[in-house]
């Protein structure tokens, strides 16, 4: 009885937290035009920072899960976490359209495809889907070799400090940019997508023997 009630409460609170999170994000970054006209409410300045650290933590934890987990499905869950975390960070970078595109294309498309492939390439009896690796130490050394360089570049380079413009709606501007300045890449991207569509079908279908 108490266990059920506790579980129920946990569920309700957890999901309410998820809804509240999106509402807050919506109000903070991608609210409607009507709200941006009125003076901003006294949202605490520390909120953005705290959310950034939480989301960055989620992203890195997910990425570590992908690279280090021994069960391939746990890796997929890690990828989900990393993509969700990175997608939420896009909202803070006032890239609302790309955040939703990330959710739709990566999680709805790529991740589902990966899960599909996992299930097609492993037998159901192998409950712990093995996922071999070359060993943690080699990887760790590699990470130690690569990450400091990137970190140093990020920290040492004197990036011009331009105060960023206030969060604006990006859908229209992205649309304009894609069809003016970036028109050629846009068309090429559509060709790439078409070619990959045909290619994927051609590769994955079973060969039909003539005889």
């Amino acid at each position: 009885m108490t266990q059920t009630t506790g579980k129920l409460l946990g569920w309700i609170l957890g999901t309410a937290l998820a809804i509240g999170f999106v509402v807050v994000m919506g109000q903070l970054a991608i609210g409607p035009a009507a709200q941006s006209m009125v003076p901003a409410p006294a949202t605490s300045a520390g909120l953005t920072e705290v959310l950034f650290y939480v989301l960055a933590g989620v992203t890195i934890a997910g990425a570590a899960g992908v690279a280090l987990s021994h069960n391939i499905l746990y890796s997929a869950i890690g990828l989900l976490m990393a993509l969700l975390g990175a997608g939420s960070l896009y909202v803070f970078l006032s890239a609302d359209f790309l955040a939703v595109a990330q959710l739709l294309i990566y999680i709805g498309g790529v991740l589902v495809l990966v899960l599909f492939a996992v299930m097609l390439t492993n037998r159901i009896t192998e409950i712990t889907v093995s996922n071999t690796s070359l060993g943690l130490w080699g990887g760790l050394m590699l990470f130690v070799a690569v990450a400091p360089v990137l970190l140093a570049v990020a920290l040492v380079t004197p990036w011009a400090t331009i105060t960023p413009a206030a969060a604006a709606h990006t859908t229209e501007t992205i649309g304009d940019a894609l069809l003016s300045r970036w028109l050629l890449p846009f068309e090429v991207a559509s060709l790439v997508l078409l070619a990959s569509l045909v290619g994927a079908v051609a590769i994955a279908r079973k060969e039909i023997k003539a005889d």
Partner: protein
Amino acid sequence: MVPVQWYLLLAAVLFGVGLVGVLIKRNALIVMMCIELMLNAANLTFLAFARQQGNIGGHAIAFFVIAVAAAEAAVGLAIVIAIYRTTGSVNVDDVRELREEG
């Protein structure tokens, strides 16, 4: 506002983890997942700079990256499944038929 350096740091770590995963994992599917991680790190960088510079070009490029990643996933997974059908394995080390002896 979180300064742009923090986003770059996060992207660097994400890229590093993805790179490590690509190099140490032998399962083709995990390798592909780690490539997605690296692409995401690149996207994060593009968007961080796009906000800092107030330039929409970063968004456009990130959009292309997402499109190409989707194409890559479709073709890559088709190849993985085709390899699995012929060799019965998704270990990238098993696929070395064309390698020279020695």
